[in-house]
């Protein structure tokens, strides 16, 4: 969740501020910014994995049990509604009013929002069940 927030947060801030020129597709600058953000997210996730592998190797190696799977299922089902609502907006409504990177960014925003919701539900669920 942290990796997604610290990478795509600034990305959408830059996109919303209108700093990037509105060029026709493929718009290499926009594509480049997206690539940098995607790579940065991967690197942060990799660092996070290595960090937790060192700090608590036992937990990293332990396969998910029934409670982990139940929490995962719940988080995915909640995130699904966010994703489907966003996809209806992007695929059904936006084509009448927008085009190009606006639609692409809206789709990306939907995916990122769904991912943040999924991670958020996981965090809240574990915190609630922690004794």
């Amino acid at each position: 969740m942290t990796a997604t927030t610290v990478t795509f947060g600034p990305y959408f801030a830059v996109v919303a501020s209108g700093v990037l020129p509105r060029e026709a597709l493929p718009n290499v600058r926009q594509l480049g910014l997206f690539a940098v953000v995607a790579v940065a997210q991967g690197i942060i996730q990799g660092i996070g994995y290595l960090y937790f592998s060192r700090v608590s190797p036992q937990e990293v190696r332990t396969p998910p049990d029934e409670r982990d799977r139940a929490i995962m299922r719940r988080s995915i089902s909640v995130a699904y509604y966010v994703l489907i609502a966003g996809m209806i907006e992007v695929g059904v409504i936006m084509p009448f009013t927008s085009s190009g990177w606006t639609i692409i960014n809206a789709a990306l925003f939907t995916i990122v929002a769904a991912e943040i919701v999924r991670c958020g539900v996981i965090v809240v669920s574990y915190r609630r069940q922690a004794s």
Partner: protein
Amino acid sequence: MKGSLSNRIRILRFLHGEMSQAELGQRIGVTRQTIAAIEAGKYSPSLEAAFRIAHVFNVPLEEVFQWDADAPGPASAK
């Protein structure tokens, strides 16, 4: 919805040589955190896990888990 599930896992662990949560978890195939959540009544285990716990302590299921139909429903146990 009314009703809540309680359990005697803490007592049964004590009676079995102060068995640790980690050991119990290992024997039934869940993590220590899951045992802690079950013990605290914050997570209701699957039927299979419940039977496994009873099997570890060598007691019937109803000696481990009790259902109180009149108690107010749990707020967060899922």
